[in-house]
Each structure stands twice: as structure tokens, then as C-alpha cells.
């Protein structure tokens, strides 16, 4: 019974999403605002895992601007979630390309000041989370993700953190499922090795 209700709710949400997308395609800005409210948390989180905190709001805005611009050309409105994740991936890739030019400078800065920055940052926000162990683990995961190639990182973020299926990730990245499996395998191994080297017992 519960499962049936849940399925119905799921169906209703999907239908509503579809309805919103169709309304957006006819230029309904209120419908787009509603879509934004539904998806911005997931998109924001994915962008954060891929690109970090800097310019996060601008990147989020860029994703939704591209979505609004591209919506009239979206031929399969029912695939909107996959499509918007693909836009997110494109925006993140573009951003990484821009950052690649400053990579050396950034790495040096990060290496020398990371501890200090972390302490200062956290010290200024004591209300956020006083659990130092948690902060330490979060930081380790962030660093571990930073070390991965972007193609591997996106697979970990979408599959392991955002809980999307391998097939969905394959659709978003427009690659075969086998490629996703392979990337997931190597990404996990690399991340696991890094975390273990940092003293984390899994």
C-alpha cells in the first residue's frame, strides 16, 4: 500500500515536472521559477562538489540561464532532470578549463595556506558545526575529490553522493554504461587509497 502511494506520488511529481517543462517551453517564467526551486539544491550541491565554493552562485545562475535558453529546443521534456545535470556538467567543465590556467598558482596557495585557511574559515563560523572530526573528514573528502580527474570526480559525485543510477550518469555524460563502471572503479580505488593514506579506516 505504502509502495503504491509512493509510486503515485513519484508519478505525480514527474507529471508536474513535465507539465512545468512544457509550460516553460511556451515561455512561462513562473513555471521556470518553480523548476528552479525544485532543482537548485541538487544542482548547487553537484556544482559545489565539482567546482568548490568560489563563484558557486554565479555557476548556479549560469546553469539555469542555459536551461532557460535551451528549454524551447528540448525535444524530450520528460528527460529534463538528465538534461539539466548535463548542463551542470558542461558549466563545471567550462569553469574547470578557466581555472586550469591558474592551476599552478592555486595549488601553491592551497598547499601553503590550506590549514590556515581552514582554521580561519571554520573559526569564523563556529555555529556551523563544532564537530572537529566531522570537519576533518569533510575536508579529506574535498581534497580527495580535488585530486581526481574531473571525469572520475563527476561519476563519484553523481553516483555515490547524488545517488543517481549508473544508467542515468551514462545518459548525463553521454557515454556507455561500461565507461561509467570503469570510471567508478578507478575513482573509488583512488579515493580509497588517498583516504587510507590520510589515516581513515574504512
Amino acid at each position, binding site marked *: 500500500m505504502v509502495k503504491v502511494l509512493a509510486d503515485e506520488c513519484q508519478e505525480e511529481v514527474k507529471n508536474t515536472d513535465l507539465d512545468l517543462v512544457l509550460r516553460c517551453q511556451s*515561455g512561462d*517564467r513562473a513555471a*521556470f*521559477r518553480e523548476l*528552479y*526551486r525544485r532543482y*537548485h*539544491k541538487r544542482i*548547487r*550541491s553537484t556544482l*559545489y*562538489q565539482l567546482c568548490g*565554493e568560489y563563484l*558557486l*552562485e554565479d555557476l*548556479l*545562475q549560469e546553469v*539555469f*540561464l542555459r536551461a*532557460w535558453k535551451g528549454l524551447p529546443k528540448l525535444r524530450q521534456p520528460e528527460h529534463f532532470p538528465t538534461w539539466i545535470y548535463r548542463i551542470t556538467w558542461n558549466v563545471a567543465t567550462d569553469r574547470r578549463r578557466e581555472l586550469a590556467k591558474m592551476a599552478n598558482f592555486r595549488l601553491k596557495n592551497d598547499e601553503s595556506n590550506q590549514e590556515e585557511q581552514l582554521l580561519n574559515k571554520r573559526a569564523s563560523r563556529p555555529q556551523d558545526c563544532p564537530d572537529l572530526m*566531522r570537519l576533518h*573528514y*569533510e*575536508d*579529506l*573528502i*574535498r581534497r580527495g*575529490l580535488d585530486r581526481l580527474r574531473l571525469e572520475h570526480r563527476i561519476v*563519484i559525485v553523481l*553516483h*555515490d*553522493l547524488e*545517488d*543517481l*543510477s*549508473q544508467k542515468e550518469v551514462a545518459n548525463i555524460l553521454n557515454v556507455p554504461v561500461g565507461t561509467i563502471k570503469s570510471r567508478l572503479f578507478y575513482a*573509488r580505488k583512488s*579515493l*580509497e587509497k588517498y*583516504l587510507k593514506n590520510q589515516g*581513515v579506516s*574504512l
Partner: protein
Amino acid sequence: MSKISSDDDRNLVAFLQQYRPIPPPANGATEDRLMQIIEEKESKKTFKFNPLIAVFSTVIIGSIFSLFSYRLFTPNYTNAQLESFMANSWDSTLEATYDDDWFLLSDREVDSDFSTQ
């Protein structure tokens, strides 16, 4: 989510999900800013220059102009008027005397040289 293959992977994924980096608090102004940009873009869109439309318009206007200008700029003479015009022109060429124009270039140059001095 697909089945996780090994215990190591399962532990890793559990660890990642438990301690996933949390994004900073969202800026509430982003939504309004986004909608404002979209609204501005939409209002600009009505005046957007479309090169394709411009080319077609130019071709159509040019065709219409050339069609009507042919009639507009063609002299509206009758055959009789043309004949009399040609006859008069021919007669005047035969009657004209060119004695005054038979100057020698060298004489002119000499005169001008003297006048300047």
C-alpha cells in the same frame, strides 16, 4: 542505485555519504537575480537583430525598387519627339564653326607663361 560490488566500496560510499562536503548556505538573492536577468533577456529578444530576416528584407525591397525604378527613370518621350531631338542635334553639329577653337596648344602655353611673369 546500482549494487555496490565489494565491502570496501560499500564502506567507502557510506563514508562519503556520511561526511560529504556540505555547500555553504545558499544566497537567497540568486533566484530573484536569475528571474530578473531572464526578464531582461526576454524584453531584449523582441528587438533582436536577425541577420536572416535582414537579408530577406533587403532582397525583397531591392527587387521591388528595381522593378518600379525601371518605370520611374525611363524617359517618357514619344517617337516623334525623339526624332526631332536627333534631327536638331545633327543639324547643330553641321552648322557649328570651330574657328575659335583652332588654337595651338603651344601658343596658349606661351601666352600663359607671359601672363604669369
